[in-house]
């Protein structure tokens, strides 16, 4: 079950009157953790939503392939997991009921579901809270539950839109550990973040500013390209 590769080619997208993406091109290699970094308003969420198929680009295209074989939009939808900035859950459903609902959405057989649910609950440390309604979870736990619902389907492409925003440092660390724990040969992870310290954790970094892709590559290469020692400096220089 190899991971998916995504290629964004010359994508432009207008959101209302604002030009959110301008001729953006980037390759998201299979099996890696990609970080889309940029300040607020850079176009990160728009790019993630285009990749998730929630938005259609005005210009350009997005192509997905698995082992060099192109995939149709329906196939991509089946193996893509999307974690929005606000991982909206149903506040009156418990963690277990959420997992069971997503089991039915993914049409997962019972035996693998139970195995995966147990594994996810253990990995997130949420086992004691399975019967707690989502509305009564802390911010970090709420995000973990959102991530569990996405990971239950074992997606080959995981899209995370600022997953660590608004959570405490411990929960941020736990969420990243979780992402790294599941990323690998079978899953490509694309994560957007405005926390520059998180860029260093990614295998590949894509720098987005004002809707333009400024650079892509390994974190060290990108920093060398801009002649900086910290990602924040890239944007401060650009200001």
């Amino acid at each position, binding site marked *: 079950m190899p991971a998916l590769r995504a290629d964004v080619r010359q994508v432009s997208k207008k959101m209302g009157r604002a030009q959110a993406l301008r001729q953006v091109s980037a390759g998201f290699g299979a099996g890696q953790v990609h970080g889309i970094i940029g300040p607020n308003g850079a176009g990160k969420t728009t790019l993630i939503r285009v990749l*998730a*198929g*929630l938005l259609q680009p005005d210009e350009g295209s997005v192509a997905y392939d698995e082992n060099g074989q192109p995939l149709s939009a329906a196939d991509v*939808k*089946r193996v*893509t997991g*999307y974690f*929005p900035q*606000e991982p*909206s*859950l*149903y506040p*009156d*459903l418990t963690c277990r*009921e959420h997992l*069971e*609902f*997503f*089991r*039915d*959405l*993914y*049409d997962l057989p019972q035996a693998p579901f139970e195995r995966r649910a147990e594994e996810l609950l253990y990995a997130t440390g949420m086992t004691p809270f399975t019967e707690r309604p989502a509305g009564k979870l802390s911010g970090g736990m709420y995000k973990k539950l959102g991530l569990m*619902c996405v990971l239950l*389907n074992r997606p080959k492409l995981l899209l995370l839109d600022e997953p660590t925003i608004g959570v405490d440092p411990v929960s941020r660390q736990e969420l990243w550990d979780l992402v790294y724990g599941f990323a690998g040969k079978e899953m490509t992870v694309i994560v957007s973040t405005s926390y520059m310290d998180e860029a260093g954790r990614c295998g590949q970094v894509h720098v987005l500013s004002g809707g333009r892709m400024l650079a892509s590559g390994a974190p060290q290469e990108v920093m060398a390209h801009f002649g900086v020692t910290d990602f924040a400096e890239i944007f401060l220089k650009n200001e």
Partner: protein
Amino acid sequence: MKLRARTIKGFFVKEIIQILRDPKMIMAIFFIPVMQTIMFGLALTSEVKNIKFVVVSKPGKIAQELESRALASGWFTKVSGINGAQVPDPEELIASHKAEAVLVAPPEGFEKALERGSSPIQLLLNATNAQRAQQVNGYVQQIVAEVARENGYNLGGGLISLDMRVLFNHYMDTTSYMIPALLVMSTFIVLLVVGGMSLAKEKETGTMEKLIVSPCSVEEIMVGKTLPYFVIGLCIVGLILFIGVAGFGIPFRGDLWQIAVNSVLFTVSALACALLISTVVHTQQQAMMASVLYLMPAILLSGVFFPVANIPAVFRWLCYLNPMMYSVLNFRAIILKGGDAGFFWQNCLWLAVLSVVLCTAAYKNFKSKLN
């Protein structure tokens, strides 16, 4: 079109859990229709009652009989402190709101008036409510005609003696007539408001995005989200029907299968309307407002309160586009008459056509909005 039973079951269970955990939803779904049925069933009556009635005449047998028959009918009430034989100005009784209807005999009495064959008997009515006044007029004419006939007077060309037979609703009981219509109205209101809001809620809270990017299809989202409300709609129909039959003693002359077919068709049409509304709104508040905007004319143009035949032709075509109208016609016919096959299938056909059109529009709109 992809429809997996497992996914739809998942939606069904989720929706039911959410409804059961929300007391406000239970209140809106079950308590409000029950209250509406009981309240409207008791209060909304088009029968004219409690008419303050005075017979102004010199004492006589006919005057006596007219008054006692009127009071015995249950429609009229006696005005205390007024003696019909000593009323100097009958019009003043109406003007001062002491009486609503005053039957005035000529000075020589009712006997003389009836003997002459014509009827120079005056009926004074307070017609500030014209509809009520017309009904009161009918009641009084009927009473005068009956009393005259029983006393051997031939009214000739005067009052027309009608031999009236009331069919299907012998006591012209408004409750029996209203409950089948209230059943449609209440169920429609609940399905439109709650169903529409449930879909709008997914949009408002952002959970709809998760559903869109999940592997489930547009059809599964649509059916999964509406199926619980379809079942709830049928439960409400059953509940109101039970209240009508057990609580109000309305007759139930039709067959259950006819009720079932009509209920299924109109529940589907109501949910299609809810789905259509949900495609044009973004929040629950907007869904609620849009539902109210739709419901107001839909109820008034459904025949629940005003006969469709009374609506001017310019607006009557709107009634024919209203699924509520066909449901009301069918429920009234099934419950009160026992259902006439031709009439039943004709309404079912129109209801089915409207349901198909509404469902197709809702599906296309829903699909294009989600895509």
